[in-house]
């Protein structure tokens, strides 16, 4: 049984079928890349799987249970967390608070323990703060911890987003273009983090256009075109596949 799978997924926007009967399955512990030309349906696929939008057809299952159309918050509780293509920071909050927010199981997020300043809230907040500081340090954001995240550079935002998602200790991490607009040094750094996480057992799915980094990083590549699965398999093989070359470069490139 695969950890995460989509069966016959369909999503239409007006008359456009962004996802057209897509079936994909991802095994526990895999590091999978998703690529495809613009408009191939990569982000729509991510949005359907992570609950941001509901698919019009097909099913999504996570750890064997049907999660089709479940809300992002429910999926986060079940261990699936994602990042966004254009980094979405909570810009009016500090780096520290961005990371702390994501902590699960904080009783102080309910009214009564918050009003009473309950012991369980304070105890949990202690561990939350410790873990958040660890993650902030791991991503070398410690010198920016008290800055508002609106003051961060594009690359730093990617790091912060990663730190925030890790606060949830997810089973499946879905990264939507983690290297977009990031300088080569930082790209390598993020890639190293992703590899480490995967080696520690986290399943990771990445959408990316930066093919060189992606093919080096992932175990398997999935190529989408017009909302359908075009090719999948070993990264080296996939990139040599004529259908992929045609999809990316057009029919005359051969």
């Amino acid at each position, binding site marked *: 049984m695969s950890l995460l799978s989509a069966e016959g997924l369909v999503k239409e926007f007006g008359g456009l079928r962004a996802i057209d009967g897509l079936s994909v399955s991802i095994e526990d512990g895999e590091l999978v890349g998703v690529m495809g030309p613009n408009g191939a349906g990569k982000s729509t696929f991510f949005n359907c799987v*992570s609950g*941001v939008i509901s698919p019009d057809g097909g099913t999504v299952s996570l750890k064997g249970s049907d999660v089709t159309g479940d*809300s*992002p*918050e429910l999926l*986060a*509780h079940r261990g699936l*967390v*994602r990042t*966004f293509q254009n980094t*979405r*920071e*909570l*810009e*009016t*909050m500090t780096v520290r*608070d961005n990371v*702390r*927010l*994501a*902590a*699960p199981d*904080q009783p*102080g*997020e*309910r*009214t009564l*323990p*918050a*009003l009473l*300043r309950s012991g369980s*809230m*304070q*105890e949990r*907040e*202690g561990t*939350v*703060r410790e873990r958040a500081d660890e993650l902030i340090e791991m991503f070398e954001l410690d010198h920016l911890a008290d800055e*508002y995240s*609106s*003051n961060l550079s594009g690359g730093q935002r990617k790091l912060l987003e990663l730190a*925030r*998602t890790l*606060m*949830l200790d997810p089973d499946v991490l879905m990264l939507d273009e983690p290297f977009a607009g990031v300088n080569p040094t930082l790209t390598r750094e993020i890639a190293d983090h992703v590899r480490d996480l995967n080696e520690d057992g986290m399943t990771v799915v990445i959408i990316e256009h930066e093919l060189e980094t992606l093919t080096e990083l992932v175990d398997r590549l999935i190529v989408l075109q017009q909302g359908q699965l075009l090719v999948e398999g070993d990264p080296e093989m996939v990139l040599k596949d004529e259908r992929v070359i045609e999809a990316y470069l057009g029919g005359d490139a051969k």
Partner: protein
Amino acid sequence: MSVLDRLPSGRGDRALIAGLVCLLLGALFAVTPLRAQLPSALYVFVEVGILFVIYGILVLGLDLQYGHTGLVNFGHVVFFAVGAYATAMLTAQDTFAGIGLGYPWPLGLAVGVIAAAVLGAAVSLTSIRLRGDFLAIVTLATAEIFHSIFVNFENIFGGNVGILGVPRPIASLVSDSDTRLVATLLVLGGVTLVTLAVVTRLTDAPYGRVLRAIRADELVTRSVGKSTITYKTQAFVYGAALAGLAGGLFALYNGAVAPGFFTIQVTVTVWIGMLLGGAANHRAVLAGLSIIMGLRLISRFALNVTPVSSDVFASIRLIVVGLILVAVIRYRPAGIWGDPQELGVDQ
């Protein structure tokens, strides 16, 4: 670092203590033969002060909704009014028109809070999933609808006269007017300070972090596992309940309620106070409100020394308030004490 260093800060505890002291002092004036004497020049200050602390509860509730959670409520007065009417109708005796059931005032006050909270929940259920501007329209419309209901259903709500004969618990205990005013200010001010302590605790806790995250980006907040609809509904209902509390206290202080007390002017005053002081900062919104209401006080004195009629003067006051608001939004869009980065505005 010990666990103690990591706790959410204890801000608001001083407000709690000050609030309790005020309540105690107020009670002292009310139940003991202790008497206060006010120079007659101070009367108007105390009267405006009483209105200020009542509106203070309103602005704290509104700030929980807008400042912290980003919910735009343009009909805040309706929750104030519903709280006041519910309290008045439950407790009034020998009302001139409308319903007066003559129950004890603590019950009336509790029902006032609950009625406003229920209306808040109803508005949330229908509109909180909508985009922010729709909530603004729904709340504005709700306030207008209730205003017409209060005016037109005379047998129930007393029409333009409203509900008279509402018990005045403090006034019934204290016969001389000076002591009565001082005791009222202390008791209601105490309630406002306790409210300040309560909302500070709520927003300083991880609960407040979730609210601010919703204001910043709801989808991100959901994607890290927070059920944002629940939080938005709660924040809206809590704000409405606080407005209901303010309304109930107003009814029990004033001894009567009428549609004229609950015009859109109330919503405008608390909104301006909040924006002027700086949203998302409890003390700042109270300070902003004090500026707006202080202006009202000054203008009362100024009226006596200017040669214009009171109508003209009221218009001038509105112009002045408008100019202040324009200036604040132009030069300090986060408000006087607001944090521009926290509110996401360029300053």
